[in-house]
Every structure is written in C-alpha cells, then in structure tokens.
C-alpha cells in the first residue's frame, strides 16, 4: 500500500519536472510565434502580453515584400541542398569503404574522419576564408557549398560507418558467391538496406547546413547572397529593432527544420545515439 503511494508520488514528481522542462523548452518558440502575429502598437504598449490581439499578418507581409528574406531563403535552400547531396554521396561511399573494405590506409582514414568531425569551425574559419578568397569564391554561394562538407562529410561518414557495420557481412558474401562483384553487392544489396540510414544522415546534414552561421557570416558580404541565419541576424541594427518581422523570419526559418525533424524524429534520435555517441 505504502509502496504504491511512494510510486505514485515519484511519478507525480516526474510529471512535475517534465512540465517545467517542457515549459522551458517550448516557451521561446511560443513567444517567437505570437510576437510574429502581434502588431507593432501592441508590442510597444505591453498589453495582452501572451496573446496577439488583434492577430495580424503585417509582419509577414513586410518581411516578404520589403526585405531580402525570400532571396535568403532561396540561398539557404540552394546551399543546404547542394552541400547535403555532395556530403551524402561522398560520405556514403567513404563510410562503406571504411566499414567494410580491406585496404591500406583504412585505419588512418577512419581516425582522420573522426578527428575532422571533432575539429571545430572556430579554428578553421579564418584560413578557410583566406583560401576561399584566393579561389575567388568569396561572396558566392559556391564558396559555402564548397566549405560546408568540411563538417557535413565527416559527420555523415561517421554516422553511416556505424550503420554499415550493423548490416550482416553474410549478405554481401552470399551475393558475391552468386557472382556479384564487390561494387555490385554494394549497389544492389547494401545500399538499399542502408537507405533509411543514408536518408537520416542526409537530412541531418541538411539541418546542419541550414543552421550554419559562422562561415556564412564570414564568407558573404553581399546582402543578397546571405543565407537565412546571417540575414536574420542582420535585422538587429543598432537600436532600431523590427521585432515583429524578425520573429516572423525566425518562424519561417525554423519551419523547414521542424518539418524535417518530425519526419525523422525516430531516425534522428537513433542516429544521434547509434552514430555519434554509441557508448
């Protein structure tokens, strides 16, 4: 009897903590959304703080018509999609080679991949900037597409190495006994089996590229060539804060990532744990 009471108390306590965590996590997003729907008058007068009254769409209207937001959105999409495709292609075959094939230099390359994944952009951004400038790629999306694989490729590779290792070797071996080549076995047997993992890695790389800030800030100076994170942060200029349309932009920047995330939640949670921090 007392045992169930204790259990119930503990469970109630858990729900209480959970509530606090949920509130803490969700409030900034709630606040962002309602701010984007408030009129400027309402924001300045501090009335009905927690609900927009009236609900207005003028912030979105202003954002889409009077700022470069749509170009930034397109730039972000181009950069994120291109660098993701590149990283996924390179990372998938690289991971397969590191996980399965026997060749000299394999151990070295696995270590190099892992170390590259861990080397932070804050060490690389200045020399990369100098390099991009020398190549004449500063101020162009091509420079970002070229630079983003520096963090997406090692990540995709590391994640997929774990995935490939979890596929039984026997599947390939039996295919090869039946006359398939190594490459044939990879293409027809392993790749289809690994498809969910590859998709998860790709979408994860997409969100990383979509969210990237430092390289985009450093490499791009032309206003119209900016990506979303840099564009949004450029709305903070001095004391003139357009919070309404800034938050509208923040909402629209978050939506693609959240859509990807909802679709991928299961894989991402597994990928994060199986791929990056399997202990």
């Amino acid at each position: 009897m007392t045992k169930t009471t204790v259990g119930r108390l503990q469970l109630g306590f858990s729900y209480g903590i959970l509530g606090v965590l949920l509130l803490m996590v969700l409030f900034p997003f709630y606040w962002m959304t309602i701010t984007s729907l408030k009129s400027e008058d309402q924001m300045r007068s501090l009335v009905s703080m927690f609900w927009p009254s009236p609900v207005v769409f003028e912030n979105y209207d202003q954002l889409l018509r009077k700022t470069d937001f749509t170009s930034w959105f397109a730039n972000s999409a181009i950069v994120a999609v291109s660098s993701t495709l590149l990283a996924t292609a390179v990372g998938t075959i690289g991971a397969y080679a590191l996980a399965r094939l026997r060749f000299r230099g394999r151990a070295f390359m696995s270590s190099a991949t892992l170390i590259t994944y861990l080397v932070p952009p804050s060490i690389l951004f200045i020399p990369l900037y100098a390099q991009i400038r020398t190549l004449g790629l500063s101020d162009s999306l091509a420079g970002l597409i070229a630079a983003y694989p520096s963090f997406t490729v090692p990540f995709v590779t590391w994640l997929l190495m774990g995935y490939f290792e979890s596929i039984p070797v026997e599947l390939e071996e039996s295919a090869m006994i039946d006359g398939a080549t190594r490459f044939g076995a990879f293409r027809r047997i392993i790749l289809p089996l690994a498809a969910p993992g590859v998709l998860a890695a790709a979408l994860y790389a997409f969100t990383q590229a979509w969210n990237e800030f430092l390289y985009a800030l450093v490499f791009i100076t032309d206003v119209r060539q900016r990506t979303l994170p840099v564009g949004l942060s450029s709305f903070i200029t001095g004391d003139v804060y357009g919070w309404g349309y800034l938050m509208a932009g923040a909402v629209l920047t978050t939506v693609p990532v959240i859509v990807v995330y909802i679709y991928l939640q299961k894989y991402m949670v597994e990928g994060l744990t199986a791929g990056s921090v399997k202990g």
Partner: protein
Amino acid sequence: MATTVPSPSPLPSRERVGVGGDFPAKAALGARPHSIAVELRRMLGADWRLGHLFILPMAVLVLALVAYPFCYAIYLSLTQKYVGVPPVFVGFENYVRLASDGFFQRAVANSLVFTIGSVVFKLFLGMVMALVLTSGIRFRSLFTGILLIPWVAPTVVSALNFLWIYDGSLGVLNYLLVKVLRILPQGVGWLSEPGTAMASVIFVNIWRGFPFFGISFLAGMKAVPAELYEAAAVDGASVVQRFRHVTLPGIRNIVIIVILLSTIWTFNDFAIVYILTKGGPGGATQVLPVFAYEMAFGAQRLGEAIAVALYMLPPLAFLIIVLARYMRKGRAR
C-alpha cells in the same frame, strides 16, 4: 583454394590477406600476370581498388578543407597578415604579444567560465531529463521528441528569440519578473549589464545543449539490463542507490563522451555569444571564438586572429584525442 580466386577478388577476407605467407607464393606458381595483382593485393589490402576509389573523394575534401587550411593557419599565425595584402613573416611575435594582452587573457578566462558553467548545468539538466523520461511516464517518445527541439532548431533563431526575451524595455522576462510575479522592482538589462550578461548567455547555451545530454543518457539507460534493476530492488536498494550503483556505472562511457563532445562544442560556440552580446558589455562575455572573429574582421589583423584560434588548439587537441579514443572504443563493442 586461394589460387582459385580470380583477381580482383570478389571474396573479401581479412584472414586471407593476413595469413598471406604461402598464398602469394602459390599464386606466383600459376599465371604470371596474376602475381602482380596478387602482390598489390597483399601490399594494399584485398579490396584496395574499390577501397581507394571510394575513399578518394573524402580524402580530397579532408585535405582541401581541413588539413591544408590547418597548415596554412599555422603559417599565417607566424606572419603579420592584413586582408588583401601578402603576409610578412614575423615568427612568434603574434603569440608573444597575445600572451601579455589583457583582452586576450580576459577572453581566455571568459571562455573557461562560459564552457564550464554551461557544461555543468547541461550535465545536470540532461540527467534530470533522462531520469524523468525513464520514470514510467506516458507518451515518452512524444515528450522526448518535444524536448529535443532546441537541439535541432537553428542556433541563430534561438539566440534571436532570447535576445528578444531578454530585451531590457519590451522583453517578456522583465515583464514576468516585474509586472506578473513582482519579484523585481524594475527591469534588468540582462545582456547590457556586466553582472548578468555572462549568466544570461550561458543560460541560452544550456537551453540549447541539454537535450543532447538528455537523449544520449536516455539511450544509455535503455541499454542497462532490466535484471540489474530488479536484482537491486530485490536487495532492497533505494532509488538513489539504484541510480548510483546501477545506472551511473552503466552509462559511464556515454557520460564521458557527451561531456567531452559538449566541452569542445561549447568552447567553440560562436553564434550565441556573437548574436546576444558580441562579447559585450565591455568585454564581459568576450569568448575566444568571438575575439578571434573581431580581430580578423573588425581589426583586420588576420595573423594575430589565427594565433588566437591556435592558442585554443592544445587543450582542444587533448580533448579530441581522448574523445576519439572513447568513441572508437564505443564503436568496437
């Protein structure tokens, strides 16, 4: 049997390459053209063609995007380099000058406070999150998904959200504390006062990063065999004892990996500090990555800026090596 294998071999096998002693010799007795291929396979590995082909693009990228810039960085840090002008070699001058530079010293101290403060609270909150999610609540996967949102949302968006929440005059935090809860007599300039700026910035980093700790610990806890808990319960262990003697040892490796990973990431976090304070007020939140950025693109002193970045390298390299060892060990199992 080895001689029946045509080359390039479809049958991969580490044993075959490993024991190699007699098998290249046997092959050499057969057709001559084969011997070169066999010799190559012995030297470069059974799948060397496809292996090297598949690894080539990655190797090129790693060389061009990490190894080369890294070496170039070391060279540039030994020069006086301004944007658009060729570098002039000055030896260790940049490093020496930085070592006695008060702003640099302050940035080092701030970086340490920022990193340690953030990681400690992330560890705590992550553990709380994982324990709550394993305590038998309903809709666990739904709540897990929601709690992970700060980790996937764009950092810049989160930083901007908090910039708005912290706003001195119209921000909701002051509104809550002054008008609703009446805890404070008047609003606080959370990011503009030296006393609160660092804590406010750290909070945002914690907010964004703790779900990663939580989700990793959760995965680790799920992998601890249920029998261990049952056995502990039979022996009369309390909840706290079970946590200390069953859960913690079971997730020890994950805890170490996550702490190291997060330390590297936090130490190098640029976006949150840059957007919230740009290192201000008066350098109170100036951390090394932002300091390096300002030196490179504000003061245009690239050589010195890279020296700042490279000062971060020894501790980072140490963390990376330890972490890489743990992560590979985790993989091997």
